[in-house]
């Protein structure tokens, strides 16, 4: 079955710092305590320049949006404050949506975050989308939030943001963790009542419950297909139980993608960067082991480890077999995307177009082939199928 009629195509860019000296490859962790003497601000400046240029390219190629994320004290992301990245992209583009996926609201002042996002929405003329994460375990080592309270704070912070965005007069909040005598966002969001909201999750059902409860979309992080589908089934079931229906844009399909002339060439051009990403940038070391972060039955399911043992390890066969990774020719990638979009029933497809230390030319090639070959082919097949259906009627 072809892709859905109103399908949107977005790219995701995680903007890593890729200029670490090679001898750092043996570090136990690229997170939390990695000395910032290893960050060269001049190289960082150049990378920002390049990455913003790539965001502009995404718009020129016709993508609907770009997803950016937030991580702290790590070389794997230069976006500890993604709202600044969003503001910069908005200023350089005119149609591109930016999905900030996003600031863990429990780590910020929730009202200030509501203000920040509202400003971005107004400044961009309603091009903002947000996805709310709990944050990885690693973020909690560098933020003043006791992880055992993380989920409760998370929930309360979301309530505050929603209250701030939906109330059209000054209100207040008196909760377990936050107290606001007056809650009153100026400017208020451009989109009425607020930008689209997703909850970011790695498959834990606790997080799916949260998305269902608020009627938000659910955005899977990089997690095995089986786990994503399990989360989707649960999401569908729970949403239906609550008397609502699941919209096709509520469960984005995120695919790590690289397109080249042939399957072999794609893998040859891609593999080193995936290795860099999984083996090096994602390596959390002991910082993944954060007390209070996950429920005990979930911990037991994971064999006593907070993050799956695969986190920070590259295994090409494992990636191919169990994850949404589409690396290959236009034909291969198109077929995979089409199959997965149907499997998920999603009208929102996010291509992770930049992996690890991929150079600009590869990213440009990848995005161009996606925009000029893969997406048109997906649409062509849809239209052809539509024509067939009409002819049959």
């Amino acid at each position: 079955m072809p892709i859905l009629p109103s399908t949107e195509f977005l790219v995701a860019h995680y903007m890593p710092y890729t200029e670490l000296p090679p001898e750092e490859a043996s570090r136990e962790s690229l997170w939390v305590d990695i000395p910032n003497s290893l960050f060269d601000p001049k190289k960082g400046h150049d990378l920002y320049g390049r990455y913003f240029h790539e965001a502009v390219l995404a718009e020129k190629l016709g993508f609907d949006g770009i997803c950016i994320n937030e991580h702290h004290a790590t070389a794997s992301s230069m976006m500890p404050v993604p709202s600044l990245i969003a503001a910069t992209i908005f200023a350089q583009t005119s149609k591109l949506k930016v999905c900030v996926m996003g600031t863990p609201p429990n780590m910020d002042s929730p009202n200030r975050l509501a203000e920040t996002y509202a400003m971005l929405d107004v400044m961009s003329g309603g091009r903002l989308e947000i996805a709310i994460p709990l944050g990885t375990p690693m973020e909690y080592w560098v933020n003043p939030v006791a992880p055992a309270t993380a989920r409760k704070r998370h929930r309360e912070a979301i309530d505050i943001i929603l209250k701030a965005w939906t109330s059209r007069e000054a209100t207040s909040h008196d909760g377990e963790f936050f107290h606001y005598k007056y809650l009153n966002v100026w400017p208020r969001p451009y989109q009425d009542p607020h930008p689209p909201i997703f909850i970011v999750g790695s498959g834990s059902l606790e997080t799916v419950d949260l998305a269902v409860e608020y009627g938000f979309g659910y955005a899977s992080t990089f997690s095995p297909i089986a786990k994503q589908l399990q989360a989707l089934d649960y999401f569908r079931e729970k949403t239906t139980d609550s008397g609502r229906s699941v919209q096709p844009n509520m469960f984005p399909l995120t695919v790590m993608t690289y397109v080249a002339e042939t399957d072999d060439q794609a893998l040859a051009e891609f593999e080193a960067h995936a290795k860099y990403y999984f083996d090096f940038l994602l390596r959390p070391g002991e910082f993944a082991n954060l007390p209070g972060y996950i429920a005990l039955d979930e911990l037991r399911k994971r064999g006593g480890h907070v993050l799956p043992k695969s986190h920070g390890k590259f295994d090409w066969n494992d990636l191919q077999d169990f994850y949404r990774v589409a690396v290959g020719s236009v034909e291969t990638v198109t077929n995979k995307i089409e199959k997965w979009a149907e499997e998920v029933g999603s009208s929102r497809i996010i291509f992770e177009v930049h992996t690890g230390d991929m150079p600009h030319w590869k990213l440009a090639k990848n995005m161009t082939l996606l925009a000029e070959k893969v997406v048109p082919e997906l649409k062509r097949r849809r239209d052809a199928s539509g024509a067939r259906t009409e002819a049959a009627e």
Partner: protein
Amino acid sequence: MNITQKITKPSMEGFERTEYDVAGTKTVVYSIGSGDPVVFLHGGATFPGFEFARSWARDRKVIIPHHPGFGESGDDDRINSVHDYVLHYLELFDQLKLERFDLAGHSFGAWIAAEFAIEHAHRLRKLVLAGPTGLVIKEHPAPDFFKIRATELPEYLTADPKVALSLFPEEPDVDFLVLGYRETTSLSRVCWDKPQGNRKLGRWLHRVKVPTLLVWGERDRFCPIAGASAWTSVLPDPRLEVIPGVGHLVFEESQAAVEAAHRFLAE
């Protein structure tokens, strides 16, 4: 597994186990022996066991509750301060009909015991604080427990890391990992953001008007011995027993420490 190994592993054999309901929280209490009661409050983990209590039980009734969120007791995330633990124990001690008794604690348990004594010294006869945490000592800061890597833990726990290692399972064990995670989570509710302790404890320790024994491993890396004088200078009736060549788990590492506390309580 041979018999010798079996004996060195902590075991609750010979202890009596009772469950209490303390304001809705299941609280498991082990006890052994008979005689005047001494309550022992364990530290931030239950895996070291309570083998030392067998020595005290020669002439005392040793009462060992598992804290909420630890060991076999239930969880309650509303218990998130040492003062909550003090109130929990106030209720438990009422249920146990303990009018006047001796109180001992190790590490985090010593912190709870010290705060209990600040508020309820009149119910106590004597107090034993072993490798106590809780007192913020600017000149001699303790390491942040939560930042200690799992692989480094044994050398923090005991002067000879082999002693601590003997308390860990030999093979990777999910139950052990989950229990450790749960107990560290419970501890984090209280002191994730104040690993040095309660900044106000020093302000009130003068209220502990009972004879107090500090049992301290000379090589304790959790609570460096240099900090002992900060305790003795504010406690009204302190005595310091330094155990040479021993680390944080004084009662697991040293029979001399076990006997010193026993003697003090017998005086």
